[in-house]
């Protein structure tokens, strides 16, 4: 009987012989292709790149791993992601909401999961249909007449709204409330920095936690838009109707930003309050927090401004036999047709994420969304009341709110929240000193339908114990 002899070289470094398995052409085929184009090696394809800017070394990444090793590495990473399983009262633009399992189930159908935004649109009737449904639902929620097929996220949608207001009014100044998410403002500044747009901010009232209509001296006949978020970054609901009048009086557009889309289920729509453009973040509609993205930019406006709107737009059309079909419409705004005159250089959309939001909205329905919104408001109101009753804790802002509110602690909020996390395993909120240095004791608490009464009670007791 032949013995199998131990051969060290066979086990010691199995990786050294692994070819890149998922490249579909073989080394022989690659050599053949190089021969046809008259080259010796693939590196010669990069000859046109000057030698001094070439890397000339391997990338600093790990050696190839076998599949079980990859899975092990990923599980190791995943186990570090403990925050997602902890009790959390974090909001501030990204929200923890329950997503029915049907959302993931439907978006994982391969017809949806593998397709990109339709560049040959009319053959993708299913995609165009769900985009049309998405747009319709966003119009209904925002109270607007036309919505696009979605944008990257809320902050980029806001920046696009600035540019659109500039096109519509031919004015170059945007006045923005300081209560808009500070990171949205950062993105908008980055986005517009090479254009001729000026951005001015309006301070908020320290008692109400929102901007006051009689302190809008920055609005003038050079102003393209007044930009307000509601519920604002502090969770306070702005007086949209009065602010809309102020903007319209000087011929500016009124842009409303919504970072918490669940609030549409309870609050009067921005459209009813006089908004000309509504932009927002759709993450709350069935989309995981995912460390901040991919999320979903919402963009809606009045029909009279549609030709200045950025992004893709699906419409309904009928053929000569009267059959209904879906088409991309007003594509002449887009850069594949209008080049440098296009309304935006975005001519894609968040296809799959928009589908998830569509399935979420259609699953919840009008009543379901209203009920979720009501639960958010009620639970937040309960938490706010209990925290305000704690000794030395207060709620600095008096304006009405939805599911977030600012708490003023008796000590530095950032340190206190770290303490709370370490000792009670609770993420109690977001210290506002990161964005507003004036009040280092303030922090933002968000309560959604996913927070139980027991969790809220535990937060209140824990806060008491760490001060």
């Amino acid at each position, binding site marked *: 009987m032949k013995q199998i002899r131990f051969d060290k070289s066979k086990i010691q470094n199995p990786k050294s012989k692994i070819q890149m398995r998922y490249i579909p052409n073989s080394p022989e085929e690659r050599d053949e292709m190089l021969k046809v184009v008259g080259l010796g090696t693939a590196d010669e394809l990069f000859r046109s790149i000057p030698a001094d800017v070439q890397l000339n070394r391997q990338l600093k990444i790990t050696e190839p791993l076998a599949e079980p090793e990859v899975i092990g590495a990923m599980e190791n990473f995943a186990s570090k992601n403990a925050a997602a399983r902890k009790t959390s009262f974090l909001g501030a633009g990204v929200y923890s909401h329950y997503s029915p399992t049907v959302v993931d189930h439907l978006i994982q159908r391969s017809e949806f999961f593998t397709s990109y935004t339709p560049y040959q649109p009319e053959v993708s009737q299913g995609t165009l249909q769900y985009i049309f449904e998405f747009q319709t639902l966003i119009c209904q929620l925002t109270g607007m007449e036309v919505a696009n097929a979605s944008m990257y996220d809320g902050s980029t949608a806001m920046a696009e709204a600035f540019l659109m207001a500039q096109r519509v009014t*031919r004015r170059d100044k945007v006045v923005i409330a300081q209560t808009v998410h500070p990171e949205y403002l950062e993105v908008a500044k980055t986005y517009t920095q090479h254009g001729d747009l000026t951005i001015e901010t309006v301070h908020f009232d320290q008692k109400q936690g929102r901007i006051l209509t009689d302190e809008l001296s920055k609005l003038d006949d050079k102003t393209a838009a007044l930009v307000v978020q509601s519920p604002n970054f502090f969770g306070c609901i702005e007086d949209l109707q009065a602010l809309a009048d102020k903007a319209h009086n000087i011929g500016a557009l009124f842009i409303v930003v919504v970072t918490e889309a669940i609030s549409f289920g309870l609050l009067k729509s921005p459209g009813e309050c006089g908004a000309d453009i509504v932009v927002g973040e759709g993450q709350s509609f069935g989309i995981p927090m995912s460390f901040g993205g991919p999320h979903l930019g919402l963009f809606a406006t009045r029909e009279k401004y549609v*030709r200045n709107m950025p992004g893709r737009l699906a419409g309904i059309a009928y053929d000569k036999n009267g059959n209904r079909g879906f088409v991309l419409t007003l594509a*002449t705004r887009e850069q594949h*047709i*209008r080049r440098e*005159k296009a309304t935006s250089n975005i001519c894609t959309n968040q296809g799959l994420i928009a589908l998830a939001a569509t399935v979420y909205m259609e699953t919840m329905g009008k009543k379901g969304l209203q009920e979720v919104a009501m639960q958010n408001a009620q639970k937040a109101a309960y938490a706010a009341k209990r925290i305000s009753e704690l000794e030395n804790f207060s709620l600095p802002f008096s304006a009405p709110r939805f599911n977030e509110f600012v708490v003023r602690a008796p000590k530095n909020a950032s340190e206190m929240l770290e303490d709370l996390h370490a000792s009670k395993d609770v993420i109690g909120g977001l210290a506002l000193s990161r964005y507003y240095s004036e009040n280092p004791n303030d922090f933002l608490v968000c309560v959604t339908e996913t927070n139980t009464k027991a969790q809220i009670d535990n937060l209140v007791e824990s806060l008491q114990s760490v001060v």
Partner: protein
Amino acid sequence: MSNNIPENLRYSKDHEWVLVDGETATIGITDYAQHALGDVVYVDMPRVGDALSSHEAFGSVESVKAVSEIFTPIAGEITEVNEALNDDAEKVNTDPYGEAWMIKIKMANPLEADAMLSAVEYEEYLSANA
């Protein structure tokens, strides 16, 4: 295809027409241009007060087939814009020399109009190039 080319107008090789009345020039697009574009669905117009240099694009005409820029053959300041086209873009197809005039400008240099093509020259240009 025979084109309607009124004799009292001046023409550009970009297929705009100009009607001169004292210092004012009225500008639109020609019958040939509207035929070439097909059904017009939207006209994007400039605003009164905008200053234009010659051959500058001042707006665009959108048809079911394409979007085309409209150029002014003559420099000047826009004194009037045909707002009626906002709601009734198809007039560009039905009455390109009448109701579908686009802008009126106060000419910076009236001699520019004289340098444009006459009706006869425009017709020759079309038959040579169309």
